[in-house]
């Protein structure tokens, strides 16, 4: 019994009439990484939220080190050594990194004044042990998402942690940072800490995890030793159906001639984010932008649609015109649309309805003259709910009550209410389940096949390799390589994205 550091027995939970967990059992041994996988809405987060005291179960028991415990709130959970790193960043943006890292400890401190020198030193040591080179005295909002994720992990580790729950920790990390995280995980394992690892990336599970449990629609389907299972089996368990081709077939005959250019970027410069960027998008292709986070990919795309300023001389040639100084709204109306990278902060109106979100980019599509026709607006939302198989109760439901994958589908419907000519999709499938992912990939490929230009910016190498006909690799604000057709493979892209090619050039 006591060989398990954490054990959940018979957990059930329903929200109203909607039961999301059915009699789920789970165990975690010390020093093991136990992955939980499953589609969005399968109940993974609910299960972990119960463990962390954020949600109360309807029935079921929790055992820590073989002893039955009652966890009413996160304080209880922390007392039992349970730490949770959420997928969504929840930090005090204006405060320093050190203050964030020791938020928990400061809260529990007995003395009245804080020894900031000591606090900073200890925080620095902790953060350095994860990723060196971050100054903990800087404020959190000076970091990008990846950096903030590191702070989240450091925060969890700052307490006496026996059980660490990581909810999709790598979804916003680039390759190098992910490697660093794996190293931390191995160190923690060696110390006997049990890690619950929630992920959508199957490759990670085979590399990093000891056991894997599959949840589907609130039921625990299976638990395997990772060494005794293969990817096909897991995908099968998750989806309840066989997914043969994870990615849709690529284009076979893209016409790379001048006549076929849909969009051309010339002499693109921005003092902070990118320099001397030139590229063309051809009709019928899916063009990928790969690179580490912070390489300037999103910033370029934002500048293309007028959301960010560029230096004089930068040009965006679209439909025979230079649209560099055109307002974003006009660009969108002319059929060049941008799906922003972060659905919570720059994509959705969370407390507003699905219908109001769907219509937000092309409001004129649901208007009679200057007035919104709310029937049309709901019809439109329903159309996209059906087309994209968005799981929801009603088209007027607020989007914050949807799971990540379904929120992402609402984001896509926003872009599609008026038939786009060019879609720039920034991290189109970040943090969503396998099923929704492959649906959205199919959608993007379908658009390309119909003649829509598609640009995908992604930190997931798999997605880039699986989806793109041509890939531009960025490193520190510059396009450093182009790979095309059958040359598109992950080693090659990584070679450039990681900057390894520079080391070689020096030698």
């Amino acid at each position, binding site marked *: 019994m006591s060989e398990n550091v954490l054990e959940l027995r018979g957990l059930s939970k329903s929200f109203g009439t909607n039961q999301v967990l059915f009699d789920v059992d789970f165990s975690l041994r010390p020093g093991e990484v136990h992955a939980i996988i499953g589609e969005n809405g399968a109940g993974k987060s609910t299960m972990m939220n119960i463990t962390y005291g954020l949600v109360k179960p309807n029935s079921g028991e929790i055992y820590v080190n073989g002893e039955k415990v009652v966890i009413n709130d996160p304080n209880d959970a922390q007392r039992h050594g349970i730490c949770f790193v959420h997928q969504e960043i929840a930090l005090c943006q204006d405060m320093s990194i050190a203050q964030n890292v020791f938020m928990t400890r400061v809260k529990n401190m007995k003395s009245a004044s804080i020894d900031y020198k000591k606090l900073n030193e200890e925080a620095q040591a902790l953060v350095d042990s994860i990723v060196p080179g971050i100054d903990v005295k800087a404020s959190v909002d000076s970091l990008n998402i990846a950096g903030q994720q590191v702070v989240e992990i450091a925060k969890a580790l700052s307490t006496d942690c026996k059980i660490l729950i990581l909810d999709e920790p790598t979804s916003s990390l680039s390759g190098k940072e992910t490697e660093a995280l794996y190293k931390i995980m191995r160190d923690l394992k060696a110390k006997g800490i049990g890690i619950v690892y929630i992920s959508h990336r199957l490759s990670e599970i085979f590399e990093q995890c000891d056991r894997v449990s599959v949840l589907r629609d609130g039921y625990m389907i299976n638990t395997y030793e990772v060494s005794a299972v293969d990817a096909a089996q897991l995908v099968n368990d998750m989806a309840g159906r066989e997914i043969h081709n994870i990615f849709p077939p690529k284009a076979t005959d893209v016409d790379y001639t001048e006549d076929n250019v849909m969009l051309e970027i010339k002499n693109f410069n921005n003092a902070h984010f990118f320099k001397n960027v030139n590229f063309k998008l051809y009709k019928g292709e899916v063009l990928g932008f790969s690179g580490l986070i912070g390489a300037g990919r999103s910033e370029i795309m934002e500048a293309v649609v007028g959301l960010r300023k560029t230096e004089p001389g930068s040009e965006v040639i679209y439909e025979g015109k230079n649209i560099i100084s055109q*307002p974003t709204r006009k660009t969108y109306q002319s059929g060049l649309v941008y799906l922003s990278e972060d659905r919570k902060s*720059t994509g959705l109106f969370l407390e*507003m309805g699905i219908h109001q979100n769907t219509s*937000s980019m092309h409001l004129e599509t649901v*208007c009679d003259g200057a007035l919104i026709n709310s029937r049309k607006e709901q019809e439109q939302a*329903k159309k996209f709910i059906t087309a994209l198989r968005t799981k929801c109760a009603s088209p007027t439901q607020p989007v914050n009550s949807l799971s990540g994958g379904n929120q992402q589908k609402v984001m896509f419907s926003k872009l599609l209410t008026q038939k786009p000519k060019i879609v720039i999709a920034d991290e189109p499938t970040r943090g969503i389940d396998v099923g929704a992912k492959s649906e959205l990939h199919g959608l993007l490929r379908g658009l390309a096949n119909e003649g829509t230009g598609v640009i995908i910016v992604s930190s997931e190498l798999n997605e880039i390799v699986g989806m793109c006909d041509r890939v531009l690799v960025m490193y520190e604000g510059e396009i450093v390589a182009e790979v095309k057709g059958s040359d598109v493979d992950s080693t090659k892209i990584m070679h450039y994205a990681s900057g390894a090619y520079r080391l070689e050039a020096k030698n």
Partner: protein
Amino acid sequence: MADNTVEKTEAVENGQKKSFFKSIIGAREFSLFLIIVVFCILLTLTQPVFATWLNIKTLLVSMSTTGMCVIAMAVVMLTGGIDLSVGSLMCLTMAISSLLFKGGMNPWVASLIGIVAGTFVGWIQGMIITKIKLIHFIVTMCFMGIARGYVTYITGGTPISLVAKLAESPTFTKMGQGDVLGNIPLPIIIFVIVVIFADFMLRRSAIMRQFFYTGSNEKAAAYSGIKTDRVKIAAMMISGFFCGVGGVIYMVRFSGVPVSAGSGLEMTAIAACVIGGVSMNGGRGTIFGSILGLAFMTLITNALNLFMVTPTVQELVRYIIVLVAVIVDNVQQNARQKKLA
């Protein structure tokens, strides 16, 4: 998996067919409306004076000027801001109009200039908020003082009386003091029309929808191609405009301008909006709701007066009731959210 999808799709269909009646009952404003009705019945039973037309009329007329500032506040709050200058701005526009009127200008033109001035001050505030990137609270708080201070300066701190002037322009005077349909004061009619129009526009107009998007998530609105700066400036201008309209009606109704007109009104307006369901974070609320909120506030004041509660404790009691109302509403909202999730 497949079954699940079918089920959900059906749920979508059903959700769509929710009846009109149900959607009214479900609306946030409905419970507030019920409370007000119950409140009125109780008052009628305990204080017969309450149900007299004279009393009701007085309440409605006072609401018709205050209500303009509530609309102003609601519009700004929807975009995620707050406008503390509404009361002072109302006073400023009526001071400008009445001085011009007194100086011999045609009263209609004078009123128009006052309203334009209010709108202009709104524009200035909007420009400072968006271009210099100062928060609403600071900018509007300063303009609250600036507008009030300017009125004191141009009037020398003495009230302006328009009694003699108004007698010369009977048509204009009718706007604030006249009755129609027998016994209904015209300001009430104007107010009802303005409320219906403003509520309709906020619900249905594509331009006003951008106010909600901006208030709900300013960044996402910008990424959706909405010019959020323009929206925020427009909201401040609309706010100034309604303060101006309210000011002009007030001026005619009371035949002049007390220098303290509209002081403290910003607090009443914020309370009315919050009770009526306008979110302090922006993106949620209706004009209809905020006017119901104002009705609620007005009824409390009236009840306190009818029960002859001494003025010294009235404010204390009033705001305790406001606090309780907001707490109850919040609990209700959370329960509703949980049901959805």
